[in-house]
């Protein structure tokens, strides 16, 4: 590939980067809310609330994201009653479909991350808070949540990285993000390996920044007495 076409490819990819970031920026908070709701429901005393949430997490963790995207986008559009309903205003838009499908998927995984974090809170600490007269609400926000967040953060950072990479599947439903634009460029010039390498290095750069951000946040949340040499390294 000569310098001119390399520059052309690079500018095209750089403009597609915004679509990838927009997908991730819309998906991660929505997925977090879904996960919060699911976690709350799964800890409920009522089976009627707990069971559907359990099923949601099971179903979305056990099926490939690509299949979920296809069912939501191409599958639902087969029903004419759905195309005539108000839901079609959202479902006819590929970007909205991609965000909904990916949020549901990452929500299910994040619910598992949250469950793990909460399970790691020592029961003695909670009991102590209750014995000191903290209300259940206060116990959760002042004692349980801070410990759980610190335990779950490394795993959640991992989930965020996975989600960012999963945005590449959006190109299968015509959302032209990084991978979609790369495929288009490959079809024009046939420079498959060169363009894939460029795309890989862009993903690497974004994810490195994301990982450093999470590491910093983790360090910020770690109390002074727990900070070790190794944790300080990044």
């Amino acid at each position, binding site marked *: 590939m000569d310098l001119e076409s390399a520059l052309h490819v690079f500018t095209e990819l750089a403009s597609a980067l915004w679509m990838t970031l927009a997908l991730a920026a819309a998906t991660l908070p929505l997925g977090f809310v879904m996960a919060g709701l699911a976690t709350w429901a799964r800890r409920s005393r009522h089976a009627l609330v707990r069971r559907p949430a359990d099923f949601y997490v099971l179903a979305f963790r056990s099926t490939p994201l690509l299949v979920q995207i296809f069912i939501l986008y*191409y599958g639902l*559009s087969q029903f004419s009653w759905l195309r005539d309903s108000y839901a079609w205003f959202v479902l006819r838009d590929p970007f909205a479909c991609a965000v909904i499908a990916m949020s549901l998927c990452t929500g299910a995984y994040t619910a598992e991350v949250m469950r793990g974090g909460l399970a790691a809170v020592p029961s003695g600490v909670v009991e102590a808070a209750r014995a000191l007269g903290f209300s259940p609400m206060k116990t959760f926000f002042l004692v349980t949540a801070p410990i759980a967040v610190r335990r779950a953060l490394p795993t959640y950072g991992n989930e965020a990285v996975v989600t960012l990479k999963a945005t590449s599947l959006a*190109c*299968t439903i015509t959302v032209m993000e990084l991978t979609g634009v790369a*495929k*288009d460029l490959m079809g*024009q*010039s046939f420079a498959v*390996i060169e363009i894939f390498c460029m795309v890989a290095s862009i993903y690497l750069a974004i994810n490195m920044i994301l990982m450093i951000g999470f590491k910093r946040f983790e360090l910020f949340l770690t109390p002074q007495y727990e900070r070790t040499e190794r944790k300080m390294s990044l």
Partner: protein
Amino acid sequence: MKIIGMGRLLATISVGLILGGSAVAQEKLPELRIGTDGGYLPWTGTTPTGDLIGFEIDLAKLVCERMQRTCRFTSQPWEGLIPALEQGKYDILVNGISITPEREKRLAFTQSYANLPINFAAKRTAGLNGKTSWPELKEALSGKILGVQSGTQSQKFMDNELKGKVTLRLYDNQDSLNLDLLSGRIDAALAGRSPWIALTRSSQGQPIEILSPNLDFQQFNYLGVGAGGLMRKDQGDLKAKWDRQLCALKAEGEVKRISEKWFGFDVSTPADPKICGA
């Protein structure tokens, strides 16, 4: 008697030796490995039992037969075909690949053997049909959401004629494009004439109609000269042999015959005078 007998025997032996020798020489020529993605009928497709079929498969088989070479056809997804060719895992790719100057910078094409007019298609209810010229249709399409398969000549047409005037959606394959055209996510779509014929003949494709006018390659010469077989640049010898057979098959009307079998009409291109001579 005896002498004649000896002579016959010698003659038989020598003929046998010559035949045997040439047979050995033929066996020594390695088989040609032909790559295709097998998911783009009527160009190249796969039967439910896994056999490759289509216009290009039939044509390539005929070329192999004429060259007296054994050919092995393998299918794999389109994205992997080009790197595999470059690494020498295939000798030639046949996949309805359009010849463009940009692609010729990197790889070599045989002469073109087929060129397909392209058409827009839309729902009958959209009322887009019946335009007599491209400027008239272009006017009707502006502001609409249009779909096209990426990497095709149709996409190039969209980029050249409608960029900025319409919302363009790119699809991986024709099937997804059909689904979104049927669901109404896109107002109209552009593709070669053959997939639209297949769609409008199917039961689910009844709401769809092919829009006039035909957009042919004489009118829009940047669409190129058609599709050819793809090779590496270091395969000049194979390219010359393949091209020579194509010249012959075009002259005999074989390309036209295979085209009519698969497309229902003639998509063959005339012999390239630079390669086949006048």
